[in-house]
């Protein structure tokens, strides 16, 4: 997966959150969305490029071309339109691994757009009704790791959700990792493929408690609920750190069983073995 990080700043943290939440909406899985995306972290004024509060957003897509297309649309519709925002790159930006965002959005300025080059970075200034929308010309990309997952199997729905929430909160503190699903938790975990040819994924029947007795269930006795946490990272180390944090938090919350899905290797080239991960 190709990944990028977008820094969005605004006059207040609230407006930065609004922009970040909107620009990462409908981005839970590339099964049905153009990208996987979420807010990675929040930035205080002293850490942001323009001295205002902001948020870091991470985006993952199948290719640089797909990522560029999605980001031009999302930043154009959700961040350009949001009061007081500005948008910056925060990954190394080599010529062969970059995508053009500001350079594509500048045409909204209808000839009144201006650029400013500071060192090797070019910024586009697009006039809008509250002043100027500032967006960087190019954004760097990197080879990210998507699809890191944990299956949290609990005694009952309430305690399982509580453990999953604590795990998601712990993972949120790990830099370079996002959980693109709502609140970081998935209830409709999927397996690769389906009996219907047009579907790329279908319900993970082995972990659906209501299908016990009908399919070969993977839910152990005494467990009644399963939640999945899916995470994407800028590299394998980030995903490993996220999984460790999630496992530790879920364990402290008293979860019945923790496992993960590799779907027979169909999910991707990386296999993270949970026992090895926790003893490393």
């Amino acid at each position, binding site marked *: 997966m190709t990944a990028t990080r977008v820094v969005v700043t605004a006059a207040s943290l609230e407006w930065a959150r609004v922009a970040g939440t909107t620009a990462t909406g409908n981005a839970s899985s590339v099964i049905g969305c153009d990208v996987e995306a979420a807010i990675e972290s929040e930035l205080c004024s002293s850490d942001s490029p323009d001295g205002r509060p902001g948020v870091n957003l991470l985006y993952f897509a199948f290719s640089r071309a797909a990522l560029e297309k999605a980001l031009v649309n999302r930043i154009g519709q959700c961040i350009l339109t949001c009061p007081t925002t500005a948008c910056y790159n925060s990954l190394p930006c080599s010529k062969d691994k970059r995508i053009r965002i500001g350079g594509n959005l500048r045409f909204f300025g209808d000839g009144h757009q201006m650029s*400013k080059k500071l*060192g090797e970075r070019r910024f586009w200034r697009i006039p809008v009704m509250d002043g100027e929308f500032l967006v960087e010309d190019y954004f760097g990309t990197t080879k990210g790791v998507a699809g890191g997952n944990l299956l949290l199997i609990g005694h009952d729905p309430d305690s399982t959700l509580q453990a999953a929430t604590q795990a998601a909160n712990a993972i949120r503190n790990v830099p370079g990792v996002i959980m693109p699903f709502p609140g970081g938790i998935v209830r409709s975990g999927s397996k690769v493929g389906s009996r219907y040819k047009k579907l790329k994924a279908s319900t993970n029947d082995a972990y659906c408690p209501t299908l016990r007795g009908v399919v070969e269930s993977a839910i152990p006795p005494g467990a009644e609920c399963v939640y999945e946490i899916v995470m994407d990272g800028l590299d394998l180390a980030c995903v490993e750190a996220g999984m460790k944090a999630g496992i530790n938090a879920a364990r402290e919350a008293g979860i019945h069983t923790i496992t993960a899905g590799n779907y027979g290797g169909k999910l991707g080239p990386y296999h993270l073995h949970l026992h090895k991960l926790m003893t490393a």
Partner: protein
Amino acid sequence: MLHLQCRYTGTIPLEAETISPDQLVGKSLAEMEKLPVQHGNRQGCLADYFSIRGDASDGAIAVEGDCQRVKLIGANMTLGRILVDGPVGMHVGAEMRGGELEVRGSAGDWAGAEMRGGVLRVRGDVGHLAGAGYRGSRYGMRGGVLLIDGAAGNEVGAVMRRGFIAVGGTVGDFLGVSMIAGTVVARGPIGQRPGAGMKRGSLILLSENPALLPTFRESGMVRPLILSLCFAYLRDLGWEAPRDMESKVWRRHWGDLVSLGKGEVFSPVGSSR
């Protein structure tokens, strides 16, 4: 590091564009001593005017002594570092494309003229036409950064096409005249007719009451984020930008309307025409 001690005390200017890492790196001392320099209408060699010691394998050159009559130091350089410990003559860093050149003293006219890249820093004052284009050239500075701690003369950044100039002291007349693009920050008081004939580009004037030509049109009070980035960029380069500038409200003028009129002049509110 290569050390060059200037022994020249005459009044006829010496043209020493051979003092550049591009010319000196990879050469032996004997080869360096024979490099040509132009003295008036006669050609001499570097050893006639400079004592040379050390080696330039690391791309670093230190020039010591009074070089006020030495022109073209670092001209066309593309890499390495030159440190001039003292005053320097005209055309220092002219047309340079890369590397760093620091002058711990004042520089003559045409400092950084038509430079295309790299960083030229002058700790003292500069003469006229810093970062400008030579007469007849379509473009002046086309890239890089020119930082002047002291004062500058007339026509700073004339016909500038790209790049960044910052002047810490007073600036003469016609700052950014016929500017095509790029950015000039002037911290001190400026002379007459700033931005005359400018097409695009930004003049960021930090002084009170900049007198603009009547062919500039005010577009109101703004707080542009790009100024915060410009000041942060200057601080990263080690140039002392005022701390309170990001919080200021700025008055913006468009101009020059006798030309394309897409240039902008920023001045802090509190100052007026």
